[in-house]
């Protein structure tokens, strides 16, 4: 109830603002009056952006999302003839150092009314601040950045369509100790904004079951010292907070050193939930690894999404493809309803409440989704398959 009141206030304010604009400006009245009627025309060259890694070491994750976004845009453009929306790629290469410049580039593009992304937590920390600037005021919906602190900065333009690590972390800890019944967990992270953030939450939630911690670097390939330390610690499970490239090599080197899956289970996170994990580890070493993710198994997505996606890309949807589709759909729905300025679209997203392919899409006042679910996935025969939902 409280959240509805909180939502209603800014919405009312936005409506007032709109009305105020309507009395003075000419263009805004026409767009305001066409609200609700789908299939109308919209400003020439109006675009939404995708902000994330399309090239670089973690590009798999970004490309999966981008494909979902593209699908949504293509469907929109086919359906609503006169209102053609362009998709602008902002390729961050997953590199935090490029995020500032790229975000400013997006901010200064006046045709751009909304963004899907940024994809990763590290780049989000930099870019989101630019978007939240009252001068810029660019609404963005992330389909994959899960660091909880992103929602704690009072950035009015921040939204995400999936659970954050504050839900994933406890769920992962619960899964390890409860479902897998492991008592001694060795927790490693890759020192990244995302990996360390998530691993720290898991450490806290594991409490006494966390026997030892370690950190590695992104880009590190030799983990022999870590593996020796895991063996010495007598751990029966390893949790890795980070991305798939390092996760794959770590589990490979554990298995190579004779730490079998029965002895030491390997559990990682949504950043590691990619086929790149199996590439790096090889099928034998990857088999039996668990991955937690606040994302719906792609085949559980509603409607014809899986079918459409498979038809468009000749491959099944992967991690966050469906979330990317949902995030884009919210922005496109707004544009269809005539919310073609950054201000209008922002207030539209705030009050959005419709079913998406992953869940009921609705945000609380911090931009977090109102309903989340965390799933455990497992590598089986070299493929990542859904194992079970982790009930929190």
């Amino acid at each position, binding site marked *: 109830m409280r959240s509805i009141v909180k939502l209603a206030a800014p919405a009312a304010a936005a409506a007032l603002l709109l009305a105020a604009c309507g009395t003075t400006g000419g263009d805004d009245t026409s767009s305001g009056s066409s609200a609700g009627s789908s299939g109308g025309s919209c400003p020439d060259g109006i675009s939404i952006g995708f902000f994330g890694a399309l090239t670089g070491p973690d590009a798999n994750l970004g490309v999966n999302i981008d494909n979902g976004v593209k699908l949504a845009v293509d469907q929109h453009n086919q359906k609503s003839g006169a209102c053609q929306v362009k998709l602008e790629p902002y390729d961050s290469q997953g590199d935090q150092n490029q995020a500032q410049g790229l975000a400013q580039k997006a901010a200064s593009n006046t045709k751009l009314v909304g963004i899907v992304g940024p994809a990763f937590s590290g780049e989000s920390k930099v870019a989101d601040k630019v978007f939240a600037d009252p001068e810029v005021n660019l609404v963005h919906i992330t389909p994959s950045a899960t660091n909880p602190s992103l929602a704690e900065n009072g950035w009015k333009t921040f939204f995400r369509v999936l659970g954050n690590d504050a839900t994933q972390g406890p769920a992962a800890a619960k899964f390890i100790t409860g479902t897998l019944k492991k008592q001694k967990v060795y927790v490693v992270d890759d020192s990244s904004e995302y990996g360390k953030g998530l691993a720290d939450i898991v450490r806290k939630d594991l409490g006494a079951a966390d026997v030892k911690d370690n950190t590695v670097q992104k880009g590190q*390939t030799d*983990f*022999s*010292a870590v593996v*020796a330390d895991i*063996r010495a610690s007598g751990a029966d499970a390893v949790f890795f907070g980070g991305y798939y490239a390092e996760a794959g090599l770590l589990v490979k080197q554990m298995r190579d050193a004779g730490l079998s899956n029965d002895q030491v289970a390997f559990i990682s996170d949504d950043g590691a939930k990619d086929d*790149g994990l199996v590439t790096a580890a*090889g099928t034998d070493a990857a088999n039996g690894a668990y991955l937690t993710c606040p994302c719906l198994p792609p085949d559980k997505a509603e409607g014809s999404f899986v079918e459409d996606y498979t038809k468009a890309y000749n491959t099944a949807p992967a991690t966050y493809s469906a979330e990317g589709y949902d995030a884009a759909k919210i922005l496109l729905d707004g544009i269809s309803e005539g919310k073609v300025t950054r201000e209008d679209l922002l207030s539209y997203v705030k009050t959005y409440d419709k079913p998406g392919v992953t869940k009921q899409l609705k945000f609380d006042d911090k931009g977090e989704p109102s309903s989340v679910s965390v799933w455990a996935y497992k590598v089986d025969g070299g493929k990542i398959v859904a194992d079970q939902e982790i009930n929190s």
Partner: protein
Amino acid sequence: MVPLSTFLDLTFTGLVIGAIYALFALGYTLVYGVLRLINFAHSEVFMWGSFGAVWAMTFLGSRPNMAWPAAVGLLLVALVVAMAVSGGVALVVERVAYRRLREKKAPPLVALISAIGASFMLSELMGLRDRVAGWVGLDGVLAPYLRQARENTAFVNPLPNVTVLSAGGFEIRSNQLIVLVGAVLMMIALDQFVSRSRLGRGVRAVSQDPEAAALMGVNQKQVVQLTFFIGGLMAGAAAVLYLIHIPVTRYNVGFILGIKAFTAAVLGGIGNIRGALVGGLVLGLVENYATLFGLESSWKDVVSFLLLVVVLLFRPTGILGESLGKARA
């Protein structure tokens, strides 16, 4: 207190990665010994060799855990291909990035920049191989070799990985042993080649005094080519051993590894073949021993570069000292 088995574990795995650094470092050391130049494109020579091995395995249909004779045969083929590719790339680098500059007596800094340029070029060429193949219309035929050009590419190691020795929680696995023994054997062979064969004598002669060597009838151009080629061969061998240890490669794999190998060369005394061996092994050990002091794995580079600084403060020419010519038993 750290248990003995962990100490042995860290020591052994440190030696394994150190042996790879050492073999890789030879390319830096040999070229420096002869030309007094740092060949910064050497990291890409290694990277191309690693792809040579990966592609050979893909082409030959390698599978994990094959029978020993077939597996060893496949691996030897991969070794030959990798060494040939690396040796070839090293020769191309010498021809394109160095020879003209040397003939025109360009200052060493120019050669350095030219080498860095060659390094970027070779690395990005690999990272963009899918597009390059697309331009010439070969992307269909070569699809299995082009997939995800900027991502990790897996090396399918056909060897079964068995436990060779297991005592009190300390294990030695066959793959680790192969890497260590293979690297040391290659280095001994090279050391013997340089110190005993006629061609090796030429290399040492040019290294000691290029002009006197030329007066004595040593073909300097040939010696330089030979030096690049041998360095390339060793990098190719290092690439295969690296892939046995860490089964993926990518277009920029040479960057960090190249810095490590270069560090190993400087640590042991650049220009000195045995110095590369000592430097590589010491570097591998120190990286792992950081764990003994309770430091997290992300600190390992801090520790190893601290060691480098300290060693250079007291012995500016490295542990065994400089000079290929003087390094003799």
